């Protein structure tokens, strides 16, 4: 059974008095039984992309197909196969969580086992509290449960891990993993590289409304490593030091006060450049790390390239 989700948008207007292109031709595809992640910084167009996929916004160009149909103005039959978790929750504040979940589930043809879902996400702990009074993480769990209440085939999760404490995060990640195993098509957005790395089968990195990279986590890190087989050294030391002149392939910057990052390290000699400077200036860093490549490096490189191109 192939339940493909094929999307291909053109620009979308943000009604800001004038037309503004938010998405400049995003293309992506999500399959059943896998977690597809849209990764990007704030304002990259992740939520807008999801809103088009969910049928909440009508794209101005391109085509969107959700389970083979146009999601804009979709039939109840199609909506019955889809679950949505919005970034801001979309939950009525005066209600308690469980009556809300029962109400949402009642719209679906084959609702999920709500009691199990409520138990699993620990919603019983705050069942008597109105949604207005829940913490951010508790609201996130209720929003996730309401996306899953209809036992959908496709589920859209906009920033599912935002505001979660470590235990809830673990529970949510395990649940997402199980749903994937059960064959659900999961599409999520995040701006957290770590989450993308942990959860995803396939990652689309978008920036300023454009696809900038895509692949499995290992493909993305390996591919980028091949392009620039360099590592990064980060260290903390006294803030606002005068930076030395270094060979052209090395870039040293103070990312935040006292936190420095040297990119482009390829050889022991490159490290010697750094230590020579420290010796000259009498600097002994408080902390020093050499990092293997992560999705974050890939993302930062891509973002950097984009900025240089502008």
């Amino acid at each position, binding site marked *: 059974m192939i339940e493909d989700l094929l999307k291909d948008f053109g620009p979308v207007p943000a*009604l800001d008095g004038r037309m503004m292109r938010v998405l400049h031709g995003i293309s992506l595809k999500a399959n059943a039984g896998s977690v597809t992640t849209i990764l990007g910084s704030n304002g990259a167009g992740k939520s807008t992309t999801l809103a088009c996929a*969910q*049928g*909440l916004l009508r794209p101005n160009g391109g085509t969107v197909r959700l389970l083979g149909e146009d999601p804009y103005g*979709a*039939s*109840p*039959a199609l*909506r*019955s196969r*889809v679950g*949505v978790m*919005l970034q*801001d*929750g*979309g*939950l*009525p*504040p*005066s209600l308690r969580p469980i009556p809300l979940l029962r*109400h*949402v589930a*009642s*719209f*679906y*043809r084959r609702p999920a086992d709500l009691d199990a879902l409520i138990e699993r996400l620990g919603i019983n702990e705050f069942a008597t509290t109105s949604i207005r009074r829940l913490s951010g993480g508790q609201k996130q769990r209720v929003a996730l449960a*309401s996306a899953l209440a*209809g036992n959908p085939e496709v589920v859209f999760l906009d920033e599912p891990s935002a505001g979660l404490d470590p235990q809830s995060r673990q529970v949510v990640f395990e649940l997402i993993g199980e749903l994937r195993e059960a064959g659900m098509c999961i599409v999520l957005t995040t701006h957290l590289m770590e989450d993308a790395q942990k959860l995803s089968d396939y990652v689309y990195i978008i920036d300023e409304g454009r696809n900038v990279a895509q692949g499995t986590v290992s493909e993305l890190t390996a591919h980028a490593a091949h392009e620039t087989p360099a590592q990064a050294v980060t260290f903390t030391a006294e803030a606002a030091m005068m930076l030395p002149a270094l060979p052209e392939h090395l870039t040293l910057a103070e990312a935040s006060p006292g936190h420095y990052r040297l990119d482009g390290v390829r050889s022991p000699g490159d490290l010697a450049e750094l230590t020579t400077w420290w010796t000259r200036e009498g600097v002994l860093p408080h902390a020093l790390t050499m990092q293997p490549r992560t999705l974050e490096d890939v993302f930062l490189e891509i973002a950097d390239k984009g900025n240089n191109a502008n």
Partner: protein
Amino acid sequence: MPTSTQAATAANAQGTLRRILLQGRYETLGMISNGEQLVVAVVLPLMALLGLVFTDLLKDVAANPIDAAAPGVLALCVVSTAFTGQGIATGFDRRYGVLRFLSTTPLGRAGLIYGKVMAVLVVLFLQVVVIGGTALLLGWRPAPAGIGWAIALLVLGAAAFTALGLLVAGTVRPEATLAITNLAWVLLAAVGGILFPSTRAPAYLQPIVDLLPSAALGDSLRAALITGTGSVSGILILLAWTIIAGFAATRWFKWN
């Protein structure tokens, strides 16, 4: 096979109806479990009724004060429930993303709106029972010939004011919706032809007041329930407001 297609269509229609009823029940419970709304829906109309009966503000309208007061208070119920209460609830639902979320469920946007309309009609029915019952106890004797007209006017008035409430709620911030709908409620009640005949409005406002849905509703209800007279112009004015506001709400309602 045509029969199975028909069966599927029937099942879908049944599902749609079921979801609208569920949403209608949910919205109704939301409306009547909210303290402020209950004050606006029942307490204030009852106070208006008693106030008008025990003063001689309407003595030129009908021989018996309760006969003069009850139709206007029923019109007030329409505005409070369909316009003010529903508008404020919708405005805040929009702010909190509830409309967006529910429109992604099988209920959909249309189901959401029909659910709201249903809740307005149910709450209005309960108001008519409470307010009308109290009025009957106070000696109200509505003209039997006008009861059919009155029901049509109440339903049409609810439609017009629901559309207007949605138009406001869907286009401005919820705080502004709160201010606009409450202010309109007070003004329409006082000089918009709701509690008092529209002829009481200041002369310079007269041409405007006569075209307001509030005057059409209030004056026509008084005509129907006091003398049993049907008002075609009242029906037409309400119908026009329903169509214009419904069209405008469909066109300009922002879901986000």
